[in-house]
């Protein structure tokens, strides 16, 4: 009789345990908000840039990986072109997007080289009318050894795709990168069409590769 009671108790606890673990698994970690995603990116990137054990090349690669994981280059490329995107062939879209991605990545690489112990503080966020989310950050550092102060404000616009927040635009002191690219691309397109734009992006990337190559051979 006693044993039966004990067994029943054990069974009951087991059922409760399994049941509760199932419940936990069900609503386990809530999807992070855009602000949380951005905060994590910022913390990770600053951690890499401040790591004394990493070489400049390591840092560039690690930051680039974070950029690849968190930026929606496809949307960025499309929005930077605007309406003309509709009229491109698949081949043109692929070539344009690849050169565009390379160009934006190069720019990112340069910023890691110029890091000078700045802090990046997430200072606010708000939802946009179309469901995108803007996360505001403030870059604080010292200019030429002077007192630390805000150097620049950078706003990140994030869009949810496949349940993941990804960055689709950077706004530096009020200047949106997508808007700026679109102005440039529009003018180039009206001049020589998509092929000229792809060519110009390609030339820019080639010049950057050459420069990086020179830098490496100088270092050796």
């Amino acid at each position, binding site marked *: 009789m006693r044993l039966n009671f004990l067994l029943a108790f054990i069974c009951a606890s087991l059922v409760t345990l399994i049941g509760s673990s199932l419940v936990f698994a069900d609503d386990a970690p809530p999807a992070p908000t855009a602000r949380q995603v951005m905060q994590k990116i910022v913390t990770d990137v600053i951690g890499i840039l401040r790591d004394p054990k990493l070489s400049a090349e390591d840092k560039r690669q690690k930051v680039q990986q974070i950029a690849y994981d968190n930026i929606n280059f496809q949307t960025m490329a*499309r929005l930077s072109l605007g309406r003309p995107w509709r009229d491109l062939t698949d081949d043109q879209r692929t070539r344009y997007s690849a050169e565009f991605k390379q160009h934006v990545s190069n720019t990112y690489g340069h910023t890691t080289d110029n890091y000078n112990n700045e802090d990046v503080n997430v200072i606010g966020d708000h939802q946009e009318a179309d469901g995108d989310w803007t996360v505001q950050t403030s870059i604080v550092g010292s200019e*030429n050894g002077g007192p630390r102060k*805000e*150097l620049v*404000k950078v706003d990140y616009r994030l869009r949810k795709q496949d349940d993941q927040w990804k960055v*689709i635009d950077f706004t530096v*002191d*009020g200047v949106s990168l997508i808007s700026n690219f679109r102005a440039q691309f529009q*003018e180039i397109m009206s001049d020589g069409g998509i092929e000229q734009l792809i060519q110009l992006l390609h030339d820019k990337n080639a010049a950057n590769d050459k420069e990086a190559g020179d830098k490496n051979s100088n270092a050796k």
Partner: protein
Amino acid sequence: MTKKPATKTPMQNKPISFLSRGVLSALLFLALACCTGCAGDPNNPDPWEKTNRFFYNLNDGFDRVALKPVADAYVKFIPQPIRNGIGNGFDNLLYFNVISNDLLQGKWSQSLGDAGRMVTNSTIGIGGILDVATGWGLPAHDNDFGITLAKWGVKPGPYIVIPLLGPSTLRDSSRYVYEYFSTPITYLWLPYYITVPLYSTQTIDLRARLNDAARFRSEVAIDPYVFTRNAYLQYRDAKIHEGKPPATTQSIYDEDVDAEPTTRPAK
């Protein structure tokens, strides 16, 4: 109210040499006289692109052969603390321009803070050479007569590239004239052997401070002329609306083609 210290970005256009400003006022009035009436397409911010590109290339060439090499030498041979002192000194000298525009825009508390900043730095900061005010919670602000006019409802008018001074709009170009007349030093009527070296140093110092911005532009821009124009117009717009640009700028995110088929149907 958000207190936003002055920042150095590619878009920033700091006051440039007084010397050119005198010449400039004359040029501007000439330009205004020629161009009033020709409104053009209201949706095109740059109806005078051809002329602007000419002056853009001229400025760029002058920068490459003269200004940048001198500024590089300045950075190389003058130690940083001295350069900082020189930069602070010029900022302080021109700061009455900021205070008076705070007042013209009815920003009373900011004008008080800015006046306190100028007094502090002019006295304890030894004539503005040391920026003690920032550490005391009186950060530098950026303000000018172009912003004042915008707040009074004046439209920007066409984009213009001013010889030696760079990107502006018809409305914003008034800031240089205003700066010239709102700076007390103007009324000392100093002899040329003081003013020429003084304003040359100011220009070189300013150029040296823009080195990072110039490098950023050369890395990012595919068409540097359009990059500069768009960055200038967006930057000024954000400044005038104090970080809250009008909803019209949002349209770039709406022109999304997600609704369209991703693969283009064969023709």
